[in-house]
């Protein structure tokens, strides 16, 4: 089972039933800012410190290197992220 570690915080497991990383984080009661939940507003931007993710649909919002949008992505490996 893949895991998501919040930098300086908890590690949670990805049970595979969630549509995206944002849903998984919320399932574990972790608060992330969000608006559109489909990749065009960029409000949920987080930092990806290690590991790989893949987009289920390509985000329209500007995502700079080292960042990703949890609302339209799934993890491909164990990942460490930072929630702003």
């Amino acid at each position, binding site marked *: 089972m893949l895991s998501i570690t919040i930098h300086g915080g908890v590690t949670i497991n990805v049970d595979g039933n969630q549509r995206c990383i944002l849903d998984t984080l919320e399932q574990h009661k972790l608060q992330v*800012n969000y*608006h559109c939940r489909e990749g065009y507003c960029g409000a949920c931007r987080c930092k990806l410190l290690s590991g790989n993710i893949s987009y289920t649909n390509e985000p329209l919002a*500007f995502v700079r290197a080292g960042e990703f949008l949890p609302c339209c992505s799934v993890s491909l490996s164990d990942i460490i992220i930072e929630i702003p």
Partner: protein
Amino acid sequence: MAYTTFNRQINDQMKEPMFFGNPVNVSRYDQQKYGIFEKLIEKQLSFFWRPEEVDVSKDRIDYQNLPEHEKHIFISNLKYQTLLDSVQGRSPNVAFLPIVSLPELETWIETWAFSETIHSRSYTHIVRNISAEPHKVFDDIMLNERILERADDVTRYYDALIDGINLYQRCGEGTHTINGQSHSISLYELKRRLYLCVMSVNVLEAIRFYVSFACSFAFAERELMEGNAKIIRLIARDEALHLTGTQHMLNIMAAGDDDPDMAKIAKECEEEAYAIFRKAAEQEKDWAEYLFKDGSMIGLNKDILCQYVEYITNSRMQAIGMKAIFSTTQNPIPWINTWLVSDNVQVAPQEAEISSYLVGQIDNEVDGGDFGDFDL
């Protein structure tokens, strides 16, 4: 140099910068320097809506039953939003179209401004419904000191850019005497005005609308003014997309691959960019104070709203690579997010009012796997 509606010079559009290259001649999208702008156009078109589709008739009863201080909050926000969208419905076209050099960006600007005109029309739709004398509401916009105060900061950067473009396209670089008055302009100065203008538009879309949005949704949380909230939801969805558009422009400019001058200007204007954000946040906080001068509303008061302004200001600044300027890190009104979700994620369009549900959208792709569990 002078603007022409059909530039006869044969150019390679892939080599043009976003602005201040050759004027666009053929509106072609087969080759694109920045494909993101066409994706934004497509998204914006899929969002298309008309104010008349939203029933606001119950709002009239709700409005009549609101206490005076809540009427003040509601109607003042509408007036302010009317001003913002009046500016946004025309200014991107007037300011950016004469200097844009990429067809996909040109069309994005037009699509963007058009959607702002829908917002303007929706305010009239709302006001007509709640008031027997809509003219009084609109007439007051030009007399309301609190609104005019902020109008100056919203329009200043547009006007400076438009003025510079007029001079440059008529007379070129240098110092010119027009009607006995001396004016100077350089291309570099124009680019600086462009950068600051896009920055100020970014701030407008990112922060200025959100105080009003929060109030509209706070009413709707109490099941009041729900027709209005439905319209505001559609507007907020559009604004989030416009914001993404200006963020892309700013980030492309700052990177410098598009136009090295712009990267230099972005650095030189850093302090001014911080000042634009800070001033907008302060003005919005003052506005919150004005809104709640006669009393708060359930679920929202001046302090909470000010914290929210600080919170979104921080997040918008970080989106374009700037540092946060306020200490607030938590969203004081997390419930607002559920109002800002794009409702595309719902699965049964026929069972809910889904604003992006396109009539006639049919999935024609069928393969063998679709019949997998069929038995005859």
